[in-house]
């Protein structure tokens, strides 16, 4: 969060600049020199004012990053499948199964280290069937589950998948 804590390495600044430039091309769509130079100015400005917000952990090298990207892509495919399941579950609940609601609050201990992994786990829990993360205190997640089945679904499989994405 503060500027002095993260040591700025040139690799990460260029990475942020490149990603922003890619985003600019998607936004803009003009590939002539005038608009590309405007894009370079804008991306340099954004990199200057908020490059330190992206990439909390800056110790990994380029190869490790590329591996993580591919694993995260695989994980997101699985996540989309879970989201589809969650919506079908919700559809069933709202039309037929309302009396089957068994709301309860479950505690879940996670062993993940970095903030980004915890963020990913919390958002994935919210998007999967029947569970919503209510609160995080340290390593403890408090989860509001909508039924017994949903509460038992929190068996740590998701956490294993996320941990696998970020292991070196």
């Amino acid at each position, binding site marked *: 969060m503060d500027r002095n804590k993260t040591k700025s390495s040139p690799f990460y600044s260029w990475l942020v600049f490149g990603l922003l430039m890619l985003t600019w091309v*998607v*936004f803009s*769509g003009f590939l002539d020199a005038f608009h590309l130079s405007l894009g370079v100015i804008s991306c340099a400005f954004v990199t200057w004012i908020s490059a330190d917000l992206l990439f909390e952990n800056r110790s990994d090298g380029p190869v490790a990053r590329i591996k993580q990207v591919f694993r995260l892509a695989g994980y997101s495919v699985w996540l989309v499948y879970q*989201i*589809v399941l*969650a*919506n079908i579950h*919700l*559809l069933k*609940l*709202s*039309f037929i199964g*309302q009396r089957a*609601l*068994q*709301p*309860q*609050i*479950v*505690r879940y201990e996670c062993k993940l280290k970095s903030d980004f992994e915890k963020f990913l786990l*919390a*958002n994935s829990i*919210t*998007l999967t069937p*029947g569970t*919503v*993360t*209510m*609160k995080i*205190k340290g390593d*403890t997640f*408090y989860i*509001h589950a*909508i039924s*017994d089945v949903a*509460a038992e679904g929190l068996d740590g499989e998701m956490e294993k998948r996320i941990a696998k994405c970020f292991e070196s």
Partner: protein
Amino acid sequence: MSIFTIIAVVLICVGLLFFLGAAVGIMRFGDFYTRMHAAGKGDTLSSLLVLLGFGVYQLNNFQSFSESWPVLLVILKLIAISAFILLTSPTATHALMDSGWEDGIEPELKNDKPETNALEEDMPQPKQKEAQA
């Protein structure tokens, strides 16, 4: 009627069905926390499907990469919108659920399962009502 139109219509119809589920859930669930389930999950996939449906329909205008670059761009932007909705919607759900707890809204919990509800004692309790002058 091309294949892209058929896919688009199917995607949009499924998206509307999920929107309907979310809307009924918001209307009928009795408790704030269960309503959050409907709100947090129902809107992500359904808006994603409808947006992707319109993106697929745009493929009808696609001829070649050099001519139809704007069409691809629209599809990429629609995917970006879906990604941002997928990112912000669960986060807003967390923030609102946490605020609801801090604001002292009592959850309706199932009473015949003491081993799960006992965990509630670990929770930070809602702040007590303060008598305001």
